[in-house]
C-alpha cells in the first residue's frame, strides 16, 4: 500500500504568501485586485512542491520562503514580459509638454475608442473610403470578388502554390481587374 504523504502545518506559508503577493503588487505597480490572484499562484506553486519537502533538512518556513521567493521571481518576470509586449500607457498618462493634461482629456467623446488606438476617426473620410470601396466593388466582376478576398490574405505566389487556382489565371485576373478599375476611374495608390 502506498504511503500517504505527511504534509506539514501550512500556517506559516499563508503569512509568507500574503506578504510576497503584497510586495509584488507594490513593486510591479499592479492593481490591488491582482493581489488575490498572485497569492493563489504562489500558494499553488508551493503546494505542488510540498512532496519534495524533507523535514530532516530544515524547517518548513525556510523551505516555503525559498519556494515563494523563486515563484515570485518567475511571476514578476512574466508580468514584466507581458507588460513589455503591450504599449504601456493609459488614459491617465500625462500628455508630454502639457502640464496637467492627460491622454484621456485629449480625446473627444465624438472620436470614440478608435482614437485611443491611433485609428482614423474622421467620419467623412470613413464614408469616402466606403464609397470608394463600393465603386471599386462595382467595377470588379462579381466572380473575382472571392479572388480579391483571397489576395487580401495571401500573395499571388502563395495562392498559386496552394493549387486552388492556376498561377497564370491569377495574374490574368489581376490584370483584368486593374484595367477595369482604371476604366472606372480608380487608379492605383502606388
Amino acid at each position, binding site marked *: 500500500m502506498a504511503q500517504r504523504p505527511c504534509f506539514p502545518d501550512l500556517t506559516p506559508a499563508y503569512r509568507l504568501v500574503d506578504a510576497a503577493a503584497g510586495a509584488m503588487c507594490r513593486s510591479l505597480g499592479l492593481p490591488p485586485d491582482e493581489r488575490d490572484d498572485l497569492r493563489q499562484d504562489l500558494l499553488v506553486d508551493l503546494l505542488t512542491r510540498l512532496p519534495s519537502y524533507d523535514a530532516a533538512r530544515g524547517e518548513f518556513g525556510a523551505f516555503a520562503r525559498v519556494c515563494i521567493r523563486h515563484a515570485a521571481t518567475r511571476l514578476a518576470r512574466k508580468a514584466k514580459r507581458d507588460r513589455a509586449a503591450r504599449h504601456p500607457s493609459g488614459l491617465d498618462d500625462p500628455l508630454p509638454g502639457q502640464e496637467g493634461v492627460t491622454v484621456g482629456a485629449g480625446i473627444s467623446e465624438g472620436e470614440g475608442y478608435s482614437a485611443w488606438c491611433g485609428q482614423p476617426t474622421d467620419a467623412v473620410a470613413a464614408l469616402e473610403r466606403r464609397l470608394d470601396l*463600393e465603386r471599386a*466593388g462595382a467595377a*470588379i466582376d462579381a466572380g473575382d470578388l472571392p479572388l480579391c*478576398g483571397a489576395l487580401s490574405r495571401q500573395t499571388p505566389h502563395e495562392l498559386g502554390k496552394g493549387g486552388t487556382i492556376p498561377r497564370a489565371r491569377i495574374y490574368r485576373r489581376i490584370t483584368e481587374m486593374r*484595367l477595369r478599375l*482604371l*476604366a472606372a476611374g*480608380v487608379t492605383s495608390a502606388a
Partner: protein
Amino acid sequence: MMDMQPTIPTGTAPAVPLTEAALCRWLGAAAPGDAITYFRGTLARSICPQLGLLDPAERVALARLAGRAWMLCEQGLAHLVQRRRGEEDFEYLIIARRRPRRAASAILPMLLAEAA
C-alpha cells in the same frame, strides 16, 4: 435615357499608339462626351494574321486594344464610332458615356458579413 449629341465629337489622336491600360486610364479620367481616336486605318485588315500588315507584336497589341474598347462598350462605359476619312481609311473613335447609375453594391454585403 442618354442625351444624344447632334455631331460626333472630334477625337484627339494619340501621339503614340494606345495601349489597353492607357485607354482604360483615359476613360477613367474622361468626362461624358470626350472622345479619342484609338486607331486609324482599317482595323479588321490590320489585325488579320493572314494578311500580315503589322508585326506580330503590334498586331496582338492592336487586337487587345480593340477587344478592350469593345468590352468597355459592352459594359456601357463608352460608345464606339467609326468615321470614314478615305478609301480604307477610318478613324476608330471611342466616346466616353455618362457613368451608369451605381447598381446595388456587390462588396458591401461581403463587408457586412465579415463584420458580423
